[in-house]
């Protein structure tokens, strides 16, 4: 149902991965992705695979749900692999009509495929184990140094968390307005492309009007609750690193070290 969208892909649980500080997980994912692009050969890839499998195991999220994340990129995955297989020049190992498969192409395709799958799986794991609001908190905290360059980090994070709250509400509203216009004989399904675009006007205008109304109301409500920017604010749930985060960072350092060694020795 629509209401579930708030939680995004979050899979409720209490595993060690769920309990890690969102900043650790956020940086950890970035480090994992970097490592993924450093390793070169079979040994390196085996190492990364073992690490990823261990993480999925630790998260206690069912395999099926983790792999679901891949469905969205399946098309891109196949396309990139095909392009690599057929278009990279090199030693020909098979040929049919204008298509030719080269050894280099095959290797690159496999490498790209693995990288893409691991990249998506790794970030899926992040969103599966982290509540969206915790994610915005992590970003606010991690990007705080950008304030020096006058980037409104707090405001951006606040906007992101408000968006998370209102996206499902607006989706529900869209559904409601759509039904109301259908009750007035509106047709959203048939007609030419141009007609279909035009038929969206009765849907989009009320939606924008409502969104602005809500924004207005929300701004008043926030002011009434003494919101006056990020200055002088305290947090009920401030982000605080625990011992497990320290251990996680040590392991991440080891991980990236191994990956660098793989790069140096071409493994």
């Amino acid at each position: 149902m629509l209401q579930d969208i708030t939680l995004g892909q979050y899979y409720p649980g209490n595993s060690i991965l769920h309990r890690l500080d969102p900043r650790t997980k956020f940086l950890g994912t970035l480090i994992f992705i970097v490592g993924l692009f450093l390793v070169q050969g079979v040994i390196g890839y085996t190492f990364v695979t073992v690490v990823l499998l261990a993480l999925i195991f630790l998260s206690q999220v069912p395999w099926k749900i983790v792999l679901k994340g891949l469905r969205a990129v399946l098309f891109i995955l196949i396309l990139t692999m095909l392009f690599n297989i057929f278009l990279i020049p090199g030693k020909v190992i098979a040929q049919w009509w204008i298509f030719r498969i080269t050894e280099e192409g095959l290797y690159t395709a496999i490498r790209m495929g693995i990288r893409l799958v691991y990249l998506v799986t790794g970030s899926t794991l992040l969103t599966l184990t982290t509540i969206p609001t915790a994610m915005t908190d992590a970003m606010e905290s991690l990007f705080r140094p950008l304030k020096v360059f006058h980037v409104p980090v707090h405001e951006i994070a606040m906007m992101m968390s408000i968006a998370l709250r209102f996206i499902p509400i607006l989706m529900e509203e869209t559904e409601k307005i759509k039904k109301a216009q259908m009750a007035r004989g509106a047709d959203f399904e048939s007609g030419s492309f141009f007609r279909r675009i035009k038929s969206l006007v009765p849907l989009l205008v009320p939606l924008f009007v409502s969104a602005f109304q809500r924004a207005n109301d929300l701004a008043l409500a926030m002011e009434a609750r003494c919101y006056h920017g990020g200055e002088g604010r305290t947090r009920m749930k401030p982000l605080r690193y625990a011992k497990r985060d320290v251990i996680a960072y040590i392991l991440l350092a080891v991980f990236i070290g191994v990956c660098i060694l793989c790069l140096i020795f071409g493994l």
Partner: protein
Amino acid sequence: MGIIRALKLGYDYKRYTDDEQELKVRAVDGVDLDVEAGEFIAILGHNGSGKSTFAKHINALLLPSEGAMFIDGVDTSKEPELWRIRQKAGMVFQNPDNQIISTVVEDDVAFGPENLGVPQDQIWARMEESLKKVGMYAYREKSPNRLSGGQKQRVAIAGIVAMRPKIIIFDEPTAMLDPNGRKDVLAVAHELCRTEKVTIILITHYMEEVIGADRVFVMDGGRVALSGTPREVFSRVEELKRLRLDVPDVTDLAYALKKKGLPFPDGILTREEFRTAVRENRILPARAETESPAAVRRTFAERTTQRSAKPEFAEASEPGTLDKSHEHTAEPVFACDISKNPSNVRQEGETLLELENVTFAYSLGTAYETKALDDISLKIPKGQFIGVIGHTGSGKSTLIQHFNGLMRPTAGRVLFEGKDIWEKGYDLRKLRTRVGMVFQFPESQLFETDVLTDCAFGPKNQGFSVEEAKEKAKAALHIVGIGEELYAASPFELSGGQKRRVAIAGILAMEPDILILDEPTAGLDPKGRDEILGRVRDFHNDHGITIVLVSHSMEDVAAYADRLVVVHEGKIAFDDTPANVFSRYRELESMGLAAPQITYLMNELAEDGFAVDTSADTVEKAEADILKRWHR
């Protein structure tokens, strides 16, 4: 000096005309007010009376153009840090969704204290304490999207309570809630006033909510028109009606009877007071010996037989429903048990719409399968005015969306004029123009640049030319009472009540055979409510259009509908005349519903040993009945 003190407060809205001229519109005009700490104050007024604008001065969301506002001794226009005032005077708004900012209940409650810079451990304590006070502690880890309107509103209140304000302003907090949510929110407001000594300012146009207040201010045209205790204010029924307001039904009844010469004191507010007055002034005759007090709880069958035996009751009802009442009383069918034999209302005329064993289930075939509708059969003949009631989540919205094919039954058939609407090749778009559906808050469907064009959208979709469509739109706008001067206005500039009427006209312009109205009066002031329902009834009487009115207001369905369908847990619990349904008010209560106030009053009078017609469910019927017996 009181905690809130307004001195000759005036406020001008700035508006710009088309040629960029600055126009000042006076919203609040010379208001003087002095409120002591711990008082419960109600501010009444119709939409646009200036009551919300005034309230926004209390927490410095607006600053006076003239005069001054002192909160806890501080002049709001002289305080550089406005949030200090807002911490003292918190505000709960009308729409619960638009004031909750977080996706987790407890995080949202913490938002205020976080803004105030309260230390972390104290925020936790405040969050827990405030959620407990509003009875929402068990939901602290839930997403607000999963809560009901009343629950969300209580979370919003907790968010204000957590800032430890001295004053809480409730700006029409119940306008968008169902009766149960309304009750809960009101109870919380009174509880905070009593136990925490918080000063409460309640802005509302529900008269029943005002009764418990210490003082009432009635605003009109930006000024305080009336003020005093609820009793003092409600004794001035005529003035209130002139101010587009209403009085509670019991007050209205006592006032009407007093005007006819019955010895009622001024300003009766509650049923208890009414009963006392009847007892002390011997207004009603005692019941005859044969009608022993035990007979008060007589069964439904006995009651209706007795009712049919006394045809004069029908004459006592208002003229408009006279004919129909006669037909009903002549029905022998009344004696059987309605819950087993649903439709007792006489089926006159041909059946327009029929539901045959309709079931609607979510997540069909999984462990989560839930039936929103469970084997419902229902016939809607031409020309009836049907009320549909049921508490939130009973399935009534799902039910009406089956009427025009917006939802498809998972089992069973929907027939319009005998044809299955889900058969292949059936023109659903055409069906929807014949079964007109006005959704809740229909003004949210307005989108055109002017009223007339918006109204013509439906007929244009039916295939009429622009000219024809406009003619139909004009006719529809006439029905709802929107004059020519507004044809060219933008729908977004109209008042709430006008917008609502334009939206209804947008459906009427398609000239449907059935008009379905889902809570058409939600959020409107009493006058706006009466205007819309009155217009609908006139149209129904003049043109014989079939009306389906979904409502939370038992008073409304009692006054307008001639058949009442009660939906409970996806089934039809009752399907009968309103009087017969309301006679089973104890069962209605077990379904989270209630009967009209007048039904309760009449039944209580019967229990007190007086002879009254317990089937009277409107002020008019009760007035006629009591008057008749008084003269006797």
